């Protein structure tokens, strides 16, 4: 019979469909794993509800659990329990190395335009803080576009959620 630790280890190998440099475990979107007999229930929290990769994530998790010889049930949890603060330290470093600036920590109140327009965001390529907001929105709901004044190129910034 499969154990919860074995399931977590297997899920740690499932890459994010949109940003394959990080795994779903590093992204912190696997909220819980419960094993009962040959059944495994995995709770998945979406990053953004509009994430187009949600169905792909679900299928990949089911396949991975299935490969362990267990019967998978992947439940998508629609609540506020996921935050970008749940991305692991290893996950953040992998994102940065791949050119995605990791998210700022979640603040007490909602994000403001002043915060987004501040220079608190570091370019993932050259490390400069001389960056500006180009667009709150980007190629997926979870990303913004910023511009680095120092190395003069755009980069993708994870939105804080």
């Amino acid at each position, binding site marked *: 019979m499969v154990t919860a630790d074995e399931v977590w280890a297997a899920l740690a190998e499932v890459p994010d469909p949109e940003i394959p440099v990080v795994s779903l475990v590093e992204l912190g979107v696997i909220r819980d794993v419960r094993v009962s007999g040959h059944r495994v229930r995995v709770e998945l929290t979406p990053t953004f509800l*509009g994430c187009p990769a949600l169905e792909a994530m679900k299928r990949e998790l089911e396949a991975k659990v299935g490969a362990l010889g267990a019967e998978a049930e992947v439940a998508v949890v629609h609540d506020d329990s996921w935050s970008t603060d749940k991305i692991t330290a290893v996950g953040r470093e992998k994102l940065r190395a791949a050119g995605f600036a990791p998210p700022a920590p979640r603040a007490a109140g909602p994000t403001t335009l002043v915060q987004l327009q501040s220079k608190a965001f570091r370019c993932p390529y050259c490390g400069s803080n001389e960056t500006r907001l180009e667009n709150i929105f980007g190629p997926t709901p979870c990303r913004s576009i910023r511009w680095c004044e120092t190395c003069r190129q755009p980069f993708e910034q994870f939105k804080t959620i």
Partner: protein
Amino acid sequence: MHANERARQLLAIADDELILGWRDSEWTGIAPTLEEDVAFSSIAQNEIGHARALYELAARELGSDADTLAFDRAPDDYLCAPLVELHLLDWAHTIARRWLYEEADRVRIEHLMRGDDELAGLAAKIDREETYHRLHAEMWAARLRDEPRFRAAVDELWPYALGVLPQELRPELARRVGLDGSNGFGDAHGRGSHRPELQELWETMTEVRRSAPGAQW
């Protein structure tokens, strides 16, 4: 709350998000700047994601599924507010609608977040994501505040914006956007009747699904 009443409440919000998501996506490729093209496409995608989560909740009450609720009802059976149905071809009106809708939606979401059920948890998630939609809308509203075309568009759409909310939440919206609510909101364009252009939107939106019933892709 009665199960049917609860399902109707969820469908009304889901339909608003789906239909506005569709309308916003109509700017994909033709927005005034490339950055707005990206912004409107992303906002539209996310609104439709909110619709999906709300339809899934409603589907559990109704013994249905999200796609069936989103695409298999007749146009007259949608519960969306006329504001989101309007086919707006002008940027000033489009920004006025985005801004007014986000303000109205915020009043509604904050109300739902105070509940103690599953919908409250979903509303909290939606609220956090909507922060970015609001920043975008507020940025544009601030930029266009003194433009006569924008002000005229806000005045024109104001009765429609009131119609997004039930009577008891309308004064709160008036207070937040600083618009007049002194006439008792008697001229609000509320839910219950549809704009003629919803039919055309529905025909386009459901065309593929109707042409190949039951298809999987």
